[in-house]
């Protein structure tokens, strides 16, 4: 999956002549935390974050000092040369960048122009989609040996029970290096038949036992 598939392609922006007041207003009204600062040619020259805003201002308990600072322009405290992403970056790259740099948002640049913005929230939603948790389904976890052909065997069983798969994730098994935990979301309210078929083939199905199923 690519950044262009998950980014917001119509981000709110300001230019360097705008003030702290403008930035605060925009953040409040649009409920956003990051604003790219761009030129007339849509080149990105900086990013203003909610945190930078707060740090730039004195405490709200000091209204007098605060007031005159509200007219300071954003180029005085924006992050210059921010880290940026490309629309064709993969979501995995993006996750690593967020993890390593601890930033919360990246402007997305193509041909030197701002084409979007992507935040940790977008990435989290992608995770929700990857797990299939946004569609009605049941989840089954299976502890499997880490050898070729296991997944094929399982999907064959799923095909034979006419079960539609929504997502498949493979986790490391905390207890054994030779095993993996397979987490599968299936599109059914009644996974009993499938679980029984898996158990019959000797698979280690994890999770709460179904009272109706013989183990």
């Amino acid at each position, binding site marked *: 999956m690519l950044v262009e598939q998950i980014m917001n392609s119509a981000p709110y922006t300001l230019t360097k002549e705008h003030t702290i007041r403008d930035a605060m207003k925009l953040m409040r009204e649009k409920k956003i935390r990051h604003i790219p600062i761009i030129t007339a040619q849509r080149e990105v020259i900086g990013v203003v974050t909610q945190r930078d805003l707060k740090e730039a201002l004195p405490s709200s308990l000091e209204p007098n000092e605060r007031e005159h600072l509200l007219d300071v322009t954003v180029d005085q405290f924006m992050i210059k040369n921010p880290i940026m992403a490309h629309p064709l970056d993969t979501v995995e790259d993006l996750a690593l960048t967020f993890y390593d740099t601890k930033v919360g948002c990246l402007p997305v640049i193509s041909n030197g122009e701002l084409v979007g913005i992507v935040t940790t929230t977008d990435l989290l939603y992608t995770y929700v989609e990857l797990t299939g948790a946004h569609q009605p389904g049941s989840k089954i976890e299976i502890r499997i040996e880490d050898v070729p052909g296991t997944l094929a065997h399982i999907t064959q069983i799923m095909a034979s029970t006419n079960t539609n798969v929504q997502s498949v994730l493979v986790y490391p098994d905390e207890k054994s290096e030779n095993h993996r935990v397979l987490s599968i979301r299936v599109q059914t*309210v009644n996974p009993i038949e499938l679980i029984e078929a898996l158990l019959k083939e000797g698979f280690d199905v994890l999770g709460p036992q179904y009272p109706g199923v013989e183990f």
Partner: protein
Amino acid sequence: MKKAVFVYSPEQLGYKFSDTHPFNHKRLTLTMDLLKNSNALDDAAIIPARVATDEELLLAHEAKYIEIVKKAGHGELLENQGEPYGIGTEDTPIFENMHEASAQLVGGTLTAVDAVMTGMAEHALNLGGGLHHGFQGRASGFCIYNDSTVAIKYLQEKYGARVLYVDTDAHHGDGVQWSFYDDPNVCTLSIHETGRYLFPGTGNITERGSGAGYGTSFNFPIDAFTEDESFLTIYEQAMREVFEFFKPDVVLTQNGADAHFFDPLTHLYGTMNIYQEIPKLAHKLAHEYCDGKWIAVGGGGYDIWRVVPRAWSLIWTEMTDQPMPTGSLPQAWLDRWQPESPVPLIPTWEDPSPLYEAIPRKAEIEEKNAMMLDKALHIIRSTK
């Protein structure tokens, strides 16, 4: 005015996927027979379910979807044509006249609504309804049309009512929730097993509604292996605080009976105790806040022999102010159905005690549920 009406037509039994499908409306027959043998259901209280019109179904469903369901039931669908609509899947296989049967279940809930809203009865029960997973344009989780969604829209349009929907099925009431997610005049409250393993996976406490409807969806996801006491603490607190917060004109309760230990599809450890208490509090609060206006529907419940007939009978006895039945079930009922039942029937209204072996992590589960309850109700408590 009657105390309550019991909506039923034999045609409701036509909602049948197959002989082996877990969703089985033989539950209706078993429940009515149990009530009659207990002298708790008078024929005069039974009113027939009408059939919902297409216009009424359109309150909650897309025209294209209704068309597909009609065609499916008349053998006019090409292979796989229904799949994008969830029709012809393992969960909702095609059966003859599936549109007519589904429209009859919706009609039953509308009959119940009209009985209550026109003042014919204080309360009404349609056990054939409660198909809470049905979506606007898609069948899901055994549900084709969503009778509760249609009924709530109908309550709004015809009666201008402010509706509280309460769902105690072990599965999240997703179809109803999403239908009214941005509507501030409908409040949905669902208590269900968490989506960690169980269908449909949604129903997190963070699902609170959107836009103008923010703060009018309440979810109480409880852990697998939750027992009576913790279930009831959550039910009672949630009900009292949400009623007080929302002040509905009318309450619609969905009474899935699949949170019981015996239920094959879920992992909750409820016993008959919760089914004694659920209708009792709904009844009490309906009188406190809604001038008595309470409509109850059925829902899930897949141990149709040992659990559903007893659990659903208790809704009716509560609704009609009859004393809660205790002790032995009528021998005639046991004799009639035991030969057909694949499991030994429970011979008493109460469950045997203990029903199951003690759960090792009980205290942790209770603690986790209690924290969940606080978080879910925080939005109400913080604005007081």
